[in-house]
């Protein structure tokens, strides 16, 4: 019997992926764990290991195909055991793979012949098992004939059925719990007018919106339509911090890190989040609750050729500048190479996006739903600043100023909160010593 391998559920919100590479060919002998496919999902490029030991019977996908969770990617032959019916049940749509057809004709679906015949044991007879065990098998979608019985003279026990169902699950890496979908609260939907035919005005090119682009589009549209955004701009005097940064840059690089402004920002934000936990939250509109998170995983927007990706640095509050500098550098590199894992993309509580390096100024970033705030940083430049020297004496001096923007979810936070939150960040960034304090 052939065993079908389907695109497993790769976790949170991933429905489909694009096949980047097929690492095996038909006839290829693989051991469980060998890499067989590379698939790019909404969140990352993932390498998929074989769940079976056996040889590749058919390959049903080629690079560039978009595959959905549950679609059959390839089949393996080794004639030992077929996958549990459970797997068939989970099919989103009956795929064309041959074994699916067989599945449709599995006993439960088959129409009964005139009862007198079907209900009398045929040679070999039905698998011995008590009625309750047989019921359990149906519940778990297990075909009794596939089970190695532990009872006397081939009697299948309830334990046998459960055990078999378990193996089946593991073999297929199917999720036990159903995936969590983002709640789809639609706004007043005025039907989207269809586009005009642009070729009437000149030649056009059509590029399919896929993977990351598609994900970004969905995520941003969702956030923008759901979250009433409030923006607060401000300028930060980076003069001192920049000096500090230049001074320590080399030693950090020695340790394999990169002492970017973002690293300090991470720290500053972590401090602010601890001071004002409401910024480290999510809003549950269904239950009308604000969920405050007691961990501080901060996402950093990374620009790749394929689009924007937001890897997450965990427990920022518990890491030193140096550690952060090293970790961030590594994470950014891997993300750019699309080697960051799905897990590294998940679980963020706040996001920082720094367009400074590209020369961006003031801008209004969109909150990374379901987070409730995002910090945007522009590029620093020397600017004339009026300093108060006391006794009504003022002095205009050139300082290195950086524009920052804090966007908040007005359902959860108010402008006042935003200003206080910004204050903490500004103070931290303007005064490195202050910032260092928080590191001890």
């Amino acid at each position, binding site marked *: 019997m052939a065993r079908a391998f389907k695109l497993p559920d790769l976790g949170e919100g991933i429905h489909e992926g694009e096949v980047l590479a097929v690492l095996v060919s038909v006839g290829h002998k693989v051991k469980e764990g060998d890499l067989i496919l590379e698939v790019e999902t909404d969140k990352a490029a993932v390498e998929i290991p074989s769940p079976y030991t056996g040889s590749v019977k058919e390959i049903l996908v080629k690079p560039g195909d978009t595959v959905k969770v549950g679609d059959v990617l390839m089949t393996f032959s080794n004639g030992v055991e077929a996958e549990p019916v459970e797997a068939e049940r989970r099919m989103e749509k009956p795929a064309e793979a041959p074994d699916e057809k067989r599945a449709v004709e599995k006993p439960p679906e088959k129409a009964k012949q005139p*009862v007198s015949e079907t209900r*009398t044991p045929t040679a070999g007879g039905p698998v011995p098992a008590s009625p309750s065990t047989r019921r359990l098998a149906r519940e778990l979608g297990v075909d009794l004939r596939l089970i190695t019985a532990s009872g006397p003279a081939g009697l299948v026990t309830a334990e046998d059925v459960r055990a078999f169902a378990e193996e089946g699950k593991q073999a297929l890496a199917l999720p036990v719990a159903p995936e969590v979908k983002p709640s789809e609260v639609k706004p007043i939907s005025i039907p989207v007018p269809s586009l005009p035919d642009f070729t009437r005005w000149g030649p056009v090119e059509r590029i399919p919106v896929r993977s990351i682009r598609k994900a970004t589009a969905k995520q941003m549209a969702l956030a923008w339509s759901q979250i009433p955004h409030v923006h607060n701009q401000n300028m930060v005097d980076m003069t001192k911090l920049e000096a500090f940064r230049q001074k320590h840059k080399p030693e950090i690089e020695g340790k394999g890190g990169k002492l970017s402004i973002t690293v300090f920002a991470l720290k500053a934000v972590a401090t602010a989040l601890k001071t004002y936990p409401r910024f480290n939250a999510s809003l549950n509109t269904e239950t009308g609750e604000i969920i405050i998170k007691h961990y501080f995983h901060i996402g950093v927007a990374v620009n790749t050729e394929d689009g924007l990706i937001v890897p997450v640095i965990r427990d920022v509050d518990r890491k030193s500048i140096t550690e952060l500098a090293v970790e961030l550098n590594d994470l950014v590199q891997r993300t750019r190479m699309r080697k960051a894992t799905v897990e590294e993309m998940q679980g963020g509580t706040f996001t920082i996006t720094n367009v400074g390096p590209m020369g961006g100024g003031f801008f209004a970033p969109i909150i990374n739903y379901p987070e409730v705030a995002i910090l945007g940083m522009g590029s620093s430049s020397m600017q004339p600043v009026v300093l108060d020297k006391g006794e009504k004496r003022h002095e205009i001096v050139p300082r290195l100023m950086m524009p920052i923007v804090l966007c908040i979810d007005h359902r959860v936070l108010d402008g006042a909160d935003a200003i206080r939150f910004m204050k903490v960040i500004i103070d931290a960034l303007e005064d490195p010593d202050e910032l260092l304090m928080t590191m001890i």
Partner: protein
Amino acid sequence: MVMGELTQESEVLVIGGGPGGYAAAFRAADLGLEVTLVDMQERPGGECLFRGCIPSKTLLYLAELIRDADRAQSMGITFGHPQIDLGTIRKWKQHVIDSLADGLVTLSKKRGVQLIQGRVAFEGSDRARLYDADISHIKFRHAILATGSHPSSLKGVVFNEEGRVMDSARALELADIPETLLIYGGGYIALEMGTVYAALGSHVTLAVRSDRLLRGADPDLAAPLIRRIEKTFDTIYYNTKIATLNETKTGVDVTFDGEVEKPFQTFDRMLIAIGRTPNSKNIGLETTRVKVNERGFVEVNEQQRTSDERIYAIGDVAGGPLLAHKAFHEGKVAAEVIAGEPSAFDFRAIPSVVYTDPQVAWCGLTEEQAQKQNRSIQVERYPWKFSGRATTMDTLEGMTKMIIDPDTKRILGLGITGRNTEGMISEGVLAIEMGALAQDMALTIHPHPTLSETVGEVADIFLGGATHILPKQNKK
């Protein structure tokens, strides 16, 4: 209703209030579904309760009493000749039926099952028309077809109220005790009704097309019964057909075609019990996607689904053994499947019981079936003449028979003939369902002295050591 056509919507429409129908309705209601049960009778119960199992068993019990009173004589107790008062018997029978039917009405009410009296005909896969009812249409999400079956007849013979040619229903009404009664058919209904009328004093003649009675049961199980019947019935004609049949005011003139010395005879009454026909006609099935096979039975799968996704069929109309207890289970399966449970009609042993004297009961694989499938089996028999309990009751003709798989030693079938087998057979059913081995049965302690011991001992024989019978090797 004087004006307009009211339509009612129902989650589950159960058509037919027999054992299958009401079991399905009750289960569905218990699973939180909204159920409407339509039957032509005012109260649920169906053929089984009003014209079948229940009334016949009521009468068979009386027959048993009469015979026991008679047997007692040889044991030292003499009762007078039984005085039979048909009026009281009918009243008693009706009382039995009423108390059970009223119980079902209460159960329906308490469960919120809506009972409607009327006739149903489908008008499509989601609506049915009601005749002779307050509402004219029912729109349903799921329908469970439980219309049952009716006694088959001979070409050109119609059963009518006053007729002398009767079907089982009519026979159970006990219009009178005919001097002579011809029963055509060799199945359990024929034998049971014959037993009743013979006990009440009729001269019973039995004619059967085939060369044996009670097909389905192994011949050796049927044998003791047949020996008895040959005593209590006047005559039994095998391989005999009815060539002509003419009903007169005074009786029924019949010409036999077969091993009969007097081919032309006249009887006071005649009972035709040659099988039953499914009620699948004139209920608008053609307006649905339900498939009906050439014999008129509705095709269903293990979940009792017909080929019309919204419609399920259970009980007699869905084919298989035409037994109430099979209908019960099918009804529950249909209800559970509708409620989304992974149920299926998945049984290994459906028991059959013939309530004659002696009773014959069997379940699982029979010797004959095994032969047809040329499947290797081992058969063990325990003649009741070795049973203490049987001796106390002077029912030595009895026998307990077990069919066993020689390789796995698993119990495949059980057959019992004798007294009270109706209660004993269930142990065999459970054993088969549980996949028990003959040894399990042998190692299970049976109370002594009981007839049920014979079930344990027949397994002992298989294992080579029955207490009350010499081991095989010591034989011959």
